[in-house]
Structures are given as structure tokens and as C-alpha cells.
């Protein structure tokens, strides 16, 4: 399995990872090599096998929907890179020419 430069750029964009040209080239080579090793799985016929997402014998663990103790606003914001009036502050998401480029 070999990845193109465009494949790598696309995945980097999906993962919101900024990388320069050298990093993209390096990633292209390394990911292609790792995927080559992973291709060993295609030897196995798994058509009749059901997938395992987790291995514990629990399902649907419920609890009562009751309010409990939670962080204070101060605690919740204590590691925020930027805050404003008790909220997390980020650049505008919507509106204007600059925002909402997603």
C-alpha cells in the first residue's frame, strides 16, 4: 500500500495537523511502509468473523441521572489558553470574511 502526497495532505487536514513539506514527505514514506506491514492481515479470511470492539462482559452500564458535584467555573477554566467573562475564548467561528473557513 502506497500513499500519494495528496492522500497524506488530505489525512493531515482531516486530523487538523499542520505539517510542512518535509514532514509531509517523511510521513508519506513512513506511513506507506507501515501500511505495507499491516497488509499481512489480508491473508486472513474474516468474512464469517464478527468484529470485537472491546473485551469486557459489560454492556449498557446505567446510572441514575442525578445532579452531582462538578467543577467550579474557575477550575474548568484554570488551564484555558484564553478566557473571557467566564467562557473559553476562541477566534470567531461564524460571520465576517475571515471566519468559518471550515
Amino acid at each position, binding site marked *: 500500500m502506497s500513499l500519494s502526497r495528496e492522500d497524506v495532505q488530505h489525512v493531515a487536514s482531516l486530523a487538523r495537523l499542520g505539517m510542512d513539506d518535509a514532514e509531509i514527505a517523511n*510521513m508519506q514514506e513512513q506511513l506507506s511502509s507501515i501500511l505495507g506491514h499491516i497488509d499481512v492481515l489480508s491473508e486472513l479470511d474474516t468474512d464469517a468473523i464478527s468484529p470485537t470492539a472491546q473485551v469486557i462482559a459489560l454492556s449498557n452500564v446505567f446510572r441514575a441521572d442525578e445532579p452531582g458535584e462538578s467543577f467550579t467555573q474557575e477550575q474548568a477554566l484554570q488551564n484555558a489558553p484564553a478566557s473571557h467573562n467566564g467562557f473559553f475564548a476562541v477566534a470567531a467561528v461564524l460571520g465576517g470574511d475571515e471566519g468559518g473557513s471550515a
Partner: protein
Amino acid sequence: MSLPDDLTLLTAAESRVALDNREISSVELTNAYLSRIEKVEPHIHAYLHLMTDMALSQANSADQRIESGDVSDLTGIPIALKDILCTTDAPTTAASKILEGYMSPYDATVVARLREQGAVFLGKTNTDEFAMGSSTENSAFGPTINPWGENRVPGGSSGGSAASVAAREATISLGSDTGGSIRQPAGFCSVVGLKPTYGRVSRFGLLPFASSLDQIGPFARTVEDAAIMLRSISGRDKMDSTSAPIDVPSFTEKFGADLKGVKIGVAKEYSVEGMEPGVDAAVKAALKQLEDLGAELIEVSLPHTEYALATYYITAPAEASANLARYDGVRFGNRIEGDDLIDTYKRTRGQGFGPEVKRRIMLGTYALSSGYYDAYYVKAQKVRTLIKQDFDAAFEQVDAIVAPTSPTVAFELGSRTNDPYAMYLADVFTIPANMAGIPGVSVPAGFSDGMPVGLQLLGKAFDESTLLGIAHAYEQAAGFYKELAEV
């Protein structure tokens, strides 16, 4: 018991007796570790953050508790915590620049339980960034050095926790194991390392890497100390819905002198090309020792072992790519401002994460992306079923399975950093247990050219007691735990 001049030579069990008999105080014991840390830490770099003031204050409180008779297993015992476990009184960084200086507003459940017991926290130990690696060289804050060889890696990802116990910079430490990150460094550093059954220990407050595989567990100099730590941190926690509502035994109830009537499986698939002859020889000697103790060795087959590594390198990165989406520079961590919000995310993550973390996020994002999901992610989940079925079938015949912990001893610093897949191969024998959710322990099993070899024992889900019983009998008969690294 006659006390050694250097109190760091005591195990946790021995320290408990000495503390309860008032032969030593927790403050004395803690000071012995702080002096030891001051002496050896410049050579080892096991710790990212020392908690000296906190440790002495906890030791003082512990001494008061002991005086009043309010004693638990770990009251006054100095321990170390992998820096991927949240603590309110020291930074939690996962050895990543993206979390430099992060102070958690809450304690991980295991930390809270140890705090309640009156344990003493010496500091937070080094790790590969977000526990992704096999050598601790992926730490953003420099590697840890193996106490057994100054140019050798300690293994990883919990290399700091393994080295802290091997160099007697802590009595016991906690690490986390997603694909071998406790057992492999334990083997490389000649200490005991235990990955409990998935669900045995609450993961609340463990910065998540691959949530269906991650499990917290202890490093210790003896199997008994590992059992003591396991019972201190185990049990259902309402903050982790995957923690199992299963009773917690002492984990020492099957300790005995021999292994008569115990059936131990030997899987031919755990002998691979490129295995170091000295490792092979040490494991063969261990098999003989187990037989001499009365165990019956039975050949078993785990035919999908060779597919475990590939399965892991889809499943773990896929889960990681989702888990690490939270590091976006909005609510915590470093932020690098960009032209707009999306550009801020890209710059923050691009500059905050190191190369291996980026590689795994990329691999996982690719495996989960439209058009590749079935071919990679679902395929890996199906092979995971086959790997689990292998173990289910084997455990119908045997009580435990024995294998090397790693195919080689600790490799040289820098020797695998340019070849990610060569690095991944260090975990080829430890990954299957995570895929199946079963417990595994690495016990010191001798040396190959002066570097430690680990013997791995794998057990049935939630039967750590049998596993530790076998490990204890072997450890006492083999005696390698008595050999300490000269640092």
C-alpha cells in the same frame, strides 16, 4: 529483621513491617529516597517532576496515622506515578509539549485511592509522549536511561516508572500498558511489571491513548509488592463504566512454595526470527525452573499471534486519533494562534505533538477515513476476535501461558528511532494480551550479556491471583530479583 543502612533497599512489604514496628518513620524512608534521587537522577532521568515538598508533608501525615494505628498497605510508602496520571498537586504532561504546565483540576481514581491510603508521592515519571513508544525516547523532555547500561533505553512507554524502581528511586511505581508499556520496560530493567485484566483498574484520570486497550498497573521489585499495589488500586469506580464490578482479592492468596498441579502453556508462536540467543536461553532455563517447581508444561497454539502487531497498529492509532482530538488549544494546553480557528487547531497540534504521536494520529485517521474503514478498522476488529479466541481455547487447557517479554534485551539509545516499524517489533510478544484483555506480568529471568531478560506470564481474565502465584514461586526460586542495578 535487621535494617539495611540504605532504606531504599527495603521492599514495600518490608517497609510496612519496619514502619508499623516503629523501627523507621515514613519521613526517614522518604528522605532516603530523596537522597537516592538526588544522587542517581542526573544519570537516569526517571522523573519529569519531583514532588519533594508534597512527599515530605505526606510522610509526616503518614507517620501521624501510623502513630494512631490508622494504617493501610501503602501508608507512608514512597511511590512514583507515570506522568500520564492526573494529579492536582503536580503537572500532568504525558511528556508532551502540548500539555506543558497543565495542572489537572482532579486526581485520577488510582491517585485518589493511594492518597486515601496515605501513600507518599515522590514525583511524576517520564514516558514516551502520550504513552506512544517502546523506548521513552519519544518524550518531549529527553529520554530516560536504563539503570543497567548507560547507552541503553529503559523500554517504554513507562520507561521512567520502570527505571525509578530499578534504580531504587521509588519503592513501587505506576505505569500504563496499552501494548506492553508496563511489561516490556519491566523486562528491560529487571523489575516486576504487571498489566492487570482490562477493567480491573479504573482508567478515570489516565490520559487516554487507546481506550479499549489501556490499563494501569504497577512496577515493583517483587511480585508481592506488585500484588500489594494491585489490590490498592483495583475495583469498580463509578467514574469509569468499563471498570468491572468484581471483588478484589488480596492477590497473594495463591503464593506458595511449589507449583504442583499447575498447568503452564508454552506457545510455539512466541519464538520468532531475530530472537536474541541470550533471551532464548534465559527463557528455556525459566521453563526448566517452572518444571522443577512441579508445574506441568503443555504445548499450546496461538495461531494468530503473528497478526497481532498489525491488528494493534490499526486499532490503537484509530482509537488514539479520536482520543487526541481533544488537544485543540481551546480548553487546555498550549495554543499557537493562526489566521482563523481551523488554522489555530492545525498550528497548535502540528507544533505541540511530536513525530510519533503525529504518525499514529495520521495512521488512525487514515484507517477510519471514508473508503478505508472496512478494509482496515473493521478488518482489525475481526482479527482481534480471532486473537481472543486463540487465548480462550488455550486457557481451556492451561492455567497460564509463558513467553519471553521481548525478543531482545534493551537496545541502544537512538538505534531504532529512524525506523518506526523496528521500534514496534519490541512489543510483538506483549500486544496480544492487550488485544484479548487478559492480565500479564513480566518477572526478572536473568541476563543476556549483562542486560536483563524478562519472563512473561499471561493469565485468564480476572485471575491475577493464579498468575501472581506462579510468578511469585518462580521469582523466589530463580532469585534474580535480588540482583540490583549498580547506579
